[in-house]
Structures are given as structure tokens and as C-alpha cells.
């Protein structure tokens, strides 16, 4: 696989089948089977939910060799049509029709979070692997059901905790693991951005998005659990007014380490992340405001609202989303465990919900040691 060049070549994947799958097509039932000569069969993906992340998924798939998006589905016919044009896939209004007609191997579920379970379960029941955006679901019962149904149906379930594919976080985790900072002690992480509900109102409804903890902080929850281990106790605080949803949570880990996480929707600045872990012999910091390797500044006329426009960026050759989705595809092909499992996604949700509960009750919430799916 081309590891360097990020140059989507749609014709290679969509209009012509991948060379490795030509001989396999006739006998294809579940096309994620390895061809007998060791080459990969083309993998067909259907996408349900043609909003922002549906588009991100589609663009990433077009850059992965041997993968084709064959169907896109959205209740909003216009959104489905636009993504169909972008991908060359067929547009559907009915998910069932898409499952029946696209011969897809896997389904990307990029819907509002409260719909994840319904569509993931339908896809699994139809024998399709599921690649679902985070959070896995909005409650543990739904998350457990998704995991159970996928297991019973013999399909894989992947959840897009993409922070595990951001190089700065991967490096931080590796350095901590190598002992570069000694024993981890106190950590911080933050994730600040404008309120997504201004453009997509479902984000403003906790019943659909889970709020900024379940939707946004869940990234850092998963990262910290990945890096610092299991969480014992959480304490959450939430300030919500108008277009501001500011959340602070302190996680106490079984190791004794402690982390304070902030998730802030309604921040009046460019999207910002920060993570830091201080240990007994050192500190590692990833400050998003200091890794803007590219700043484009343009003088702008008065109507743009100011004398200049400044766009900070941190470009890479391969986006973390592309690395994540390519990894999930590899896992489907190889049968290997992914870097982030459905169980990890379940645990991240469990912690996020405990934080939400703590913010509501004002009490610290203890997590059950070793609790897994279905144990609650």
C-alpha cells in the first residue's frame, strides 16, 4: 500500500475492479475473503449518513487500494445525491435497499449518534461488517447489543476513535509506554471548538448527541484509558448556557494517576486540542496551538470582517481518518484485532456516561472494576 502519497485516484477503485479480485468475483459471497493467490478481493463499502463524516469516510475509502464505495444512503436525498456524485456510488433513501442491492461487505455508520445502534444492528443482521463513528452509542445497553449482535452474526465491529490514529497522540502513548516520563502522575487534555449544533442542530440535543462529554470528550477519555489504563472513579462538572457547553471531568485511574479533561463546545477560537502527561521523571506535552506547521494569511477586503484572514493548519500526507479506516479494512482482511476495539469503545462510553451522571448528581462515580459489555 502506498504509505506516503495521499492522492485519491477514484477511477482505480470505483470504475474498475481491483486487479486482485477479478478472478474472485464469480464466487464471491462475502468478498472479504482472501484470494487463493494471496491477493485481496475488492471490498465494497456502503455508507449510511451523508453528512460531514460520511463525506470524510467516502474520501478516505477512495484513497484505499482495493476498496470501493458502492452505495450511499441518507434520508436527505440531496445529501445522498451529492455524496453519490462525489464517489460514483449509487444513492439510496432506503437503508434496506442499499444493503440488498450494493453487495457491500461493510457499512460505514456515519449517522447522528442516537441512530448508531439501529443501523449497526441492521447491517450486522444482513451479514455486513460495521465501521461506526464514535461514540459507539448513547447508552451501554445499545453498545452491548451492537457488540453482541456483531459477534453472533460473525461480523466485525469497529468504532472510529480516531485520536488513536493522530500521530501526536500515538507518539505520546508510545513515549509513556517506553517509560520516558517515569510513572505517570497528573494528566490534562482539552478539546475546544465551536458548537457543532450551530450547523447541525441534533448536536444540541443530548438525546441525539449525548452532549459534549459523550460526543467530544470521549476522544480524550479513550486516549487516556489507552495510555494510563483502567479508570476507577470519575467526577464531572458541566456548564451549559446558550451556545456554550463546557465540561470538565477528573478521572482517577487504578494506577493512582489522575487526569482532568475538558470538552468545550462554543469556544470562540479555532479548534484547539491539548494533552499533557506529567510523570515522576518527565513531562510530555502535545499543544495543538504550537504544532501549526502551516499558517496561511491573506489580506482581505472589509466584507470579510477584518483586515486579514488567518488559517492555521497542521497538514500531513495521510489524514488520521485515512489511517484509521485503512487499518479497519486491513483488520477485516486479516482477521486481526484493531488498535481500538469495540470493547474499548464500550469502556469509553461507560466512562463518559459516568461523568455525565456525576455532573448531574454532584457525586463522584465509581466504575466497576473489570466490568464488560453486558455486565450492567
Amino acid at each position, binding site marked *: 500500500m502506498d504509505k506516503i502519497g495521499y492522492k485519491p485516484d477514484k477511477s482505480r477503485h470505483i470504475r474498475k475492479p481491483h486487479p486482485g479480485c477479478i478472478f474472485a468475483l464469480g464466487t464471491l459471497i462475502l468478498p472479504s475473503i482472501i484470494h487463493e493467490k494471496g491477493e485481496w478481493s475488492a471490498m465494497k463499502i456502503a455508507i449510511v449518513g451523508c453528512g460531514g463524516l460520511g463525506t470524510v469516510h467516502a474520501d478516505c475509502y477512495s484513497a484505499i487500494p482495493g476498496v470501493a464505495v458502492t452505495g450511499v444512503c441518507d434520508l436527505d436525498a440531496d445529501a445522498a445525491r451529492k455524496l453519490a456524485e462525489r464517489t460514483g456510488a449509487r444513492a439510496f433513501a432506503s437503508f434496506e435497499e442499499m444493503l440488498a442491492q450494493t453487495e457491500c461487505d461493510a457499512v460505514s455508520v456515519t449517522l447522528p449518534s442516537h441512530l448508531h445502534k439501529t443501523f449497526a444492528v441492521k447491517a450486522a443482521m444482513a451479514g455486513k461488517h460495521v465501521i461506526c463513528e464514535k461514540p459507539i452509542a448513547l447508552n451501554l445497553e445499545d453498545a452491548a447489543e451492537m457488540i453482541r449482535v456483531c459477534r453472533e452474526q460473525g461480523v466485525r465491529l469497529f468504532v472510529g476513535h480516531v485520536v488513536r490514529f493522530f500521530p501526536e497522540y500515538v507518539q505520546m502513548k508510545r513515549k509513556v509506554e517506553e517509560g520516558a516520563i517515569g510513572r505517570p502522575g497528573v494528566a490534562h487534555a482539552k478539546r475546544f471548538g465551536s458548537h457543532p449544533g450551530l450547523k447541525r442542530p441534533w448536536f444540541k440535543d443530548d438525546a441525539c448527541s449525548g452532549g459534549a462529554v459523550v460526543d467530544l470528550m470521549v476522544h480524550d477519555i479513550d486516549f487516556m484509558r489507552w495510555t494510563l489504563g483502567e479508570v476507577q472513579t470519575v467526577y464531572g462538572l458541566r456548564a451549559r448556557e446558550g451556545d456554550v457547553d463546557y465540561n470538565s471531568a477528573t478521572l482517577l485511574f487504578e494506577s493512582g494517576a489522575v487526569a482532568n479533561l475538558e470538552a468545550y463546545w462554543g*469556544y470562540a477560537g479555532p479548534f484547539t486540542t491539548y494533552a499533557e502527561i506529567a510523570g515522576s521523571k518527565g513531562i510530555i506535552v502535545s499543544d495543538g496551538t504550537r504544532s501549526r506547521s502551516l499558517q496561511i494569511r491573506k489580506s482581505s477586503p472589509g466584507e470579510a470582517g477584518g483586515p486579514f484572514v488567518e488559517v492555521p493548519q497542521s497538514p500531513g500526507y495521510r489524514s488520521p481518518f485515512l489511517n484509521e479506516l485503512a487499518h479497519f479494512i486491513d483488520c477485516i482482511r486479516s482477521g486481526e484485532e484493531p488498535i481500538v476495539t469495540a470493547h474499548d469503545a464500550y469502556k469509553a462510553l461507560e466512562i463518559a456516561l459516568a461523568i455525565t451522571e456525576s455532573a448531574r448528581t454532584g457525586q463522584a462515580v465509581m466504575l466497576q472494576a473489570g466490568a464488560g459489555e453486558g455486565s450492567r
Partner: protein
Amino acid sequence: MNKLKVGMISFAHGHAFSYLNALLELPQVEVVGIADEDFSRVEAVVNRHNLPYFEDYNDLLRLTGLDAVVICSENARHAQMTIDAAHAGKHVICEKPLGISVTEMEQMIAACRDNGVQLMTAFPCRYLAAVVHAKQAVERGEIGRILAIKGTNRGTMPGRWFVDPALSGGGALLDHTVHVMDLMNWFTGSKVTEVYAYAATLFHEGLQVDDAGMIHVKFENGVFGVLDTSWSRSKSFPTWGDVTMEIIGTKGSITVDGFAQKNDLYSDDIGKGQHLFWGDSMDLKMIESFVNALLEGAPAPVSGIDGLRSAEVALAGYESVRLGRPVKL
């Protein structure tokens, strides 16, 4: 010019050196003596500035014409020294934390009040230029109403008496809650009603006090605050620590990074990068403000009550750590 005559009691806390420099810089101040039972601690400054030295601070307090004292002793000795100074009729500026128990802090405040002297808690962070401007921006309503404040006051493990609970009264949670908690009290104009804290010894094995702390407070007006108080800055870190606040309002936010005004020095002689602060001295501004208030007969700009309101939060924090749940104040 009517000069204010100031004496200093104890250099146990290193801030005393900075406060002395501030006093020496102010033309309206005359430093009349230094008291410290450990002469070696003050020998250099006593000789350099040719200052009268007292082994027993009570001898300093008996000096005629002495107006005020600066107390920088071990935390556990603040109360006795402050009360003695009050009885001698001297105004006091006392290093933070004001005391190590609510009862003794109340006694300090009462003694000063009863003897008609001012008691100021040394909270220099109120005099960081960025903090002063942030306060003004909040007062102008630039970020609407405050909803929450996230702060950090990280530092380096100070060693010495700071890690002896009998002299310090606590570890990082006490040492580093008080500065930013005072700022939170000041900015919100409200009172802490509930505290939830975590404290542990995570960075320095075998320490008798906590060196890691995360404290959470709820204010009467609904605002909440979170503060990292840890002595978590490693030897390899380019500076001693920080004072930061992120103030989240209904119409925006303000980020204060009190010591961001720095140059980065990379010197082979030192072997690690260093942050060199070049901003205005908060200690000078604080001492000047104390001195001028006394000369004008005005109340101390930061009171003993302010010191109590901040330290009692840290003390409640320890109670919360012991119980493992939030405690009411």
C-alpha cells in the same frame, strides 16, 4: 517624606528575598531589621544591605517606630508571629497560606482587628499584569457571565520544611491551591460552597506529603472551578511551574498564562532549555500596594479574610480526599 518602617520576620520561605528586594526598591520604605533564628539564612542580605539583625523576632517587634512586618516563616508559625505582631501594634503582610487551620486563621484575623492593624495575605498573583487586565475584561463584560474557571498552579517539589507536615500543614494541595483559589474567589466575587479533591504522592517516592492534587470547587453563584496544584514540574522542565486560568464565560473565554512573557534560553552550560520570565514583577507591585495602603491609612488591598477564604478551601480539600467525596464548606 514620611517613610514606612518595615521589618521582616523569617526567611524560611524563599519569597522573603524577593519581598526584601521590593521593599529596598521603594523610596517610601525604610527596612529597619530582619529577624530569623537561623542567621545563616539571612547573613548575605543582612551584610549586603547593612541591616539590623535580630535572632528573636520579638526583639524586632519592640523596635520603636516599626510600622509593619513581612512574615515569611514556615506555615505552621504564621499564626503565632502574626498574633504577636498584632499585639505589638504592627501591621502584617503574611506569606500564603495564611494558616494551617481555620481556627488559627480566625484568631489571626481577630487579633489584627482588635489591635487596629492591617492584615494582608501575600497573594502576588493578583498583581500579575495579565491577571489585572483579565479582571478588568471580566468587569467590562467582555465574556458575558463567568460559567467556569480551569486553573493550574503547577510547581517544583520545594523540599525542606515544605514537605514536613508539622511545619507546612500539608503538601502541594495546600501550597498550590491558595493562589489561584484566591483569584477564583476574586474573579467570581462569590464564595466556595463545596469542594471535591484528589491528592496523592505520585511524583516523589517516600515524600511525607502529597505532591499531586486536583481540586474542584462549586461557588454559591453556580460557577465551578478546577485547579491542578501539583508539584509536577520535573527537573528537566524549562521552568519552575506556572499560574494559568481559563475563564469560560457565556459570551467568550479568557486565557491567562501568567508567566508566558518569557524568552527561551538554550545554553550548553545548563544542559536544558530554560524559560526566562521578563514580565513585570508581581512581588514588587504587591509590596508597593501594601505599603501605599498603610501610608494612606487605607485597608490592605488583599485581606486576612481573603487568605482564610482561600486556605479553607485547601483544608476542605484534604477532608474531601480523606472521605473520597465532595464536602460542603
